[in-house]
Every structure is written in structure tokens, then in C-alpha cells.
């Protein structure tokens, strides 16, 4: 009996079997890439804001502390976007005629707040609290990217659950003290970093990476130091990965 299928048919059947599996998987992966990519999560994308507010200008060049504008960041869950009055406390004196600031002046007169576009947001079934992270000296830039370099603010991290957990599983990798003043309250450290940078102090490698908001690389020594801090500050590592920590 002659062969019904030629030898090539073997290959065809393998290829089609492969495709049968690979195509749906590929489709899922492509879909995930889209939903988790910058177009959806807005990571790295400056948004169109009503006033072209520049952190680079106000933070890096003028040296204003984050807390002048985001005053509740140390004490509450929300950092809060500043009120119009906060802008006006300076802009009633300086740059008073700038057309760019017209929406600010108008908002101050009418009492209707400026509608800033929200950049960073976790879903509303997630509980996030700034104050505890600041109390442990986690830098703003670890979570928000290099704010001091942003002319128009963009999102530095995608805030997936996996990303939060990466740190919550091993917080010792991220904890460090300011070597210039190791006994100081860690809370102040994140803010000092911006002025140290502004005035051209020598920064340690971990400080640099924190400032740039790039992925940290961990040396053994640093992790050992971090473990000591976990102990010293009583960081509750055990409960950091419990679901109820972030989903209440």
C-alpha cells in the first residue's frame, strides 16, 4: 500500500500542533503586554496637565521640600496634591503675571480646585499608606521614579501586586541609613537626599540608585545592614505579605 501521507506531513502536523498551543498562548501574552504596557498603565508617560507644573524646576532648581506641597505624606495614607493656596503662597509674590499660571489664579478666585490628572493610583480595593513607608525611610523615588528630573510628572512604577510584594517579602534589601548621620530618624533621609544631590554631595551607590529610581542591585553587606535595621526598627516582616495588609 502506498503511503497516504508524505514524509513532510510529519513536520506539518508538528507545526500545526505547536501552533494550536502557541497561538492562544501568544494571544494571551500579547494581550497581557498591552494591558500591562505603558499605553494602559501610563508608566513613563507625562500626562496633559492644566498647568505645566515642573517638579524639576520646583524641587531640583528651587530646592523646595516635597512636604511644602505634599504636606500630609509623612502623617497619613495620602500624600495629597497641593491646594491652590499652596501655589499662591509663592505665586502671589513671584511670577505673578505668568500666563501659564492663569488657571491657578482663577482657581484661587473662584474656589474651584484645579483638576490635576491623577498619575499614580492603585485600584480602590487596595489599601496603601504613605506614612509607614516614609517612617521606614523608603524613598519617594523608589516608587515614583526620578521626580526631581521630571518636567511634567510621569508615573515611575506600574504598582502591580507583584511589585509591592517584591519589597514586602524582603524589605531588608531596601532599608538603609544616611551614612552621614546614621542615628537620625530615617523619616528625614528621603528628603535630605534631594538637597544632598542639589548641593553636589558625594552619594553612596545605594543613594544614587534610589535617587534615580532605577532597579536596585543588592550587595551582601548592604542586605546584612538591612537585616539589622529590620530588627532595630521592628519592621513586621511576617505580616507584610498577608493578604489583609493590602486588601481590607
Amino acid at each position, binding site marked *: 500500500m502506498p503511503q497516504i501521507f508524505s514524509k513532510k506531513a510529519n513536520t506539518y502536523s508538528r507545526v500545526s500542533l505547536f501552533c494550536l498551543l502557541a497561538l*492562544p498562548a501568544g*494571544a494571551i501574552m500579547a494581550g*497581557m503586554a498591552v494591558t500591562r504596557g505603558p499605553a494602559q498603565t501610563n508608566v513613563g508617560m507625562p500626562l496633559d496637565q492644566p498647568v505645566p507644573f515642573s517638579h524639576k524646576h520646583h524641587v531640583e532648581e528651587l530646592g*523646595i521640600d516635597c512636604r511644602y506641597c505634599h504636606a500630609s505624606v509623612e502623617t497619613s495614607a495620602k500624600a*495629597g496634591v497641593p491646594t491652590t493656596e499652596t501655589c499662591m503662597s509663592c505665586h502671589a*509674590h*513671584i511670577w505673578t503675571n505668568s500666563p501659564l499660571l492663569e488657571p491657578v489664579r482663577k482657581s484661587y478666585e473662584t474656589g*474651584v480646585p484645579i483638576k490635576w490628572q491623577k498619575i499614580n493610583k492603585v485600584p*480602590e480595593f487596595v489599601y496603601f499608606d504613605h506614612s509607614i513607608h516614609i517612617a521606614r525611610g523608603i524613598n519617594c523615588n523608589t516608587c515614583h521614579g526620578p521626580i526631581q528630573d521630571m518636567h511634567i510628572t510621569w508615573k515611575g512604577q506600574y504598582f502591580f501586586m507583584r511589585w509591592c510584594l517584591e519589597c514586602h517579602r524582603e524589605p531588608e534589601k531596601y532599608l538603609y541609613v544616611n551614612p552621614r548621620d546614621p542615628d537620625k530618624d530615617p523619616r528625614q533621609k528621603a528628603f535630605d537626599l534631594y538637597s544632598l544631590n542639589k548641593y553636589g554631595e558625594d552619594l553612596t551607590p545605594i543613594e544614587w540608585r534610589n535617587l534615580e529610581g532605577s532597579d536596585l542591585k543588592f550587595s551582601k553587606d548592604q542586605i546584612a545592614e538591612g537585616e539589622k535595621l529590620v530588627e532595630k526598627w521592628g519592621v513586621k516582616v511576617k505580616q507584610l505579605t498577608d493578604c489583609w495588609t493590602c486588601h481590607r
Partner: protein
Amino acid sequence: MFRRLRTIRARHWIHLVSLAGVAFAATGCHIDMWYQSKKVAQDENEFFRDGKADRLPVAGTVARGELRHDDAFFTGRVDGKLITDLPARVEVSKELLERGKERYTIFCSHCHGAAGDGKGMIAQRGLSLRRPPASFHTDRLREMPLGHFYEVISNGFGVMYQQGTRIDSGVGAEKGKMDRWAIVAYIRALQLSQYYDASGLSAEEQEKLGIPAPEQIEWKNAFTEAQKKAAGSKPEEGGH
């Protein structure tokens, strides 16, 4: 024969479409719980004319544990007169002054300068300021009762906007929050450090120091002395 082929095709299409549906679901792009009907801080709410979801309590509301029964502490005045001393529950300590320094640096230094001389960043940039930020090192302000500084922070002064909404008034003072008074104490310390009698130091030390840093003062003594001095001078009636 052809008919059969067509039905098979149709079935394939159904499979393909449902597969695409499954793939789409597996990517996890449902957001039904992401935006809930609850209102969180700084949300929008169309219901109110200003569009804000955050509402202020009705005027005169007193939250539990936040009764402001201590006039000196919460207004800087007793019986309408500015207080010359710190309120009783504020205790001068190194911690208080350090806190004051930290808060001063955040909220005041870009206008009034790190040394309180009125030469902050804004003052240096703003060529056309209507009124420059005050220097604290004038006789008038050196002798000003402490309550005045508390008032300026809380209510503003002249062209200076109030800073109070962002600086803790000490409502939760039991918890040691008294940032406005900490700043007040630090300003007086700054005034002292700029007005410091350096004769006790060797010439070399004086040279090196220029002006002694606030850390170098015996806090408690210097402080009480200044208090006495301020108390001895006439407090300005009625404030500004």
C-alpha cells in the same frame, strides 16, 4: 460534500472566536472593582458646586478629643494679649528645637532664608516682590512676644499667606505634635544665635564659627534669658 465543509468551517470559527474570548479574559483586564462608588480624599463629586468630594465640618464642630480649651497654646494669646513665654505644655528641649529646625527648613526657609535673614531663594529671585520677606534679626522682632510668631504662622501677616493649614497646630498635642510652637522656639533660637555674645570663645573659635550654629548654644539657659528679656520689654498690644 461542499455543504459539509461549510459546516465544519462554521464550527471552527465558533471555536476561534471563543478562544479569543478566553484569551482576552485571561489577560485580566476587567476593572469592575477598581473604581468603587466610595469617595476617597481629593475625589471629585459633581453634587457640590465646587466639585470637591472633601467637605469641611460645619463651622463650630469640635471633634472628639480636639477641644481647643488652651488659649495660649492654640491662639498665642491669653485674654487678648500676646503671650511672651511659651505655653505651659510646650517644654523646651533639644528635640523640640530640632523639630523646629526641620519644619522651619521645609516651610519658611525658601522665603526667610536658612538663617532667618530674609534672604531666601524666593527673595533672591523675585526682583519685583511687593514686600520682601522679613528678617527676624531686627530689634522689633527680637523683642516681639512669642505669641506673635504663632499668630503669623497661623493667620499670615501682611502679604505673607498663612502657613497654618500645612503645619500642625498641636490639636493632637498629647501625641507630641506641636510643630508651630517648635518653629516659634526655633526662630527665637535663630535670633539668639545671630545675636550671640561670642566673647566667651577664644579668638580662634570665633574665627572658625563666624556665627555659632544653633547647636552650639546651651539651649535652656539662653532660652530663658531671652524670655526674660522679651518679657521685660513691652509686648505690642493688639498685634498687627
